[in-house]
């Protein structure tokens, strides 16, 4: 293991469908391309909603079961899970977070995926999930390159690092 060997390729797995589940993978993939690192994004399980047409513009923050969540801001009071379950809470938290991201020029998910695609990263969906959810290629955004089996994903990731998010 050589500590100073630069990273030349990453394959990032996005397995969760919440806003905080999807964005880190997108930021990492985009950041990789900006550094000249080859990048692949692989969406699986609920993470698949990140690349589903008419759904990936409605991705929300999970306000339930998130003990780190605070209101009204990151240094505010802890939000009890029961409050997080009140209708509209997730929408409000999502709205606030989107507003903050807009300020620092992090694009909305559909636009971000276009940017990542144009940057030359591969965007893939997991075959097992596609079958399980009864989806076809038409259900996906045009930037989704291909539905891959896990075996094909490993082939595609050859010679690089795999990051699971």
């Amino acid at each position: 293991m050589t500590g100073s060997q630069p990273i030349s390729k990453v394959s990032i797995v996005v397995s969760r469908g919440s806003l905080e589940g999807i964005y880190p993978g997108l930021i990492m993939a985009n950041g990789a391309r900006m550094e000249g690192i080859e990048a692949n994004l692989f969406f699986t399980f609920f993470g698949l909603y990140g690349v589903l047409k008419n759904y990936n513009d409605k991705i929300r923050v999970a306000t339930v079961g998130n003990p780190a969540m605070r209101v009204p801001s990151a240094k505010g009071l802890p939000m009890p899970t029961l409050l997080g379950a009140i209708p509209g809470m997730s929408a409000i938290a999502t709205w606030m977070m989107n507003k903050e991201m807009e300020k620092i020029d992090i694009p909305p998910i559909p636009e971000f995926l276009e940017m990542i695609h144009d940057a030359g990263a591969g965007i893939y969906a997991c075959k097992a999930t596609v079958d399980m959810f009864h989806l076809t290629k038409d259900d996906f955004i045009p930037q989704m390159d291909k539905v891959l089996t896990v075996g094909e994903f490993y082939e595609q990731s050859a010679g690089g690092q795999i990051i699971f998010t």
Partner: protein
Amino acid sequence: MAQKQINGTTIDVNDEGYMTNHSQWNKVIAATIAEEEGITLTPAHWRVLDFIDHDFQEKGVVPGMRRMNKVGGIPTKDLYELFPNGPIKKAAKISGYPKPASCV
């Protein structure tokens, strides 16, 4: 702080080769830094460099990809074609501005 000679002019640069004194920058220096990065500057490159220059004067930071798209009107694909392997980093370096400090 390191120094570097370009066509008889001395410029101040940091460890990574980014210029630290923009007043020393000119188009000949830009072309020389670009050559070092394997890029021959064309009018399409200059459109990007001019936007960075203009935006830096206004905002004090190197614009990110989204700002390049939305405000500069320069598509992501073009940026990657013009400045391969690290578009904004390379464009910032050639423009004589600091390495971009944003994640996006």
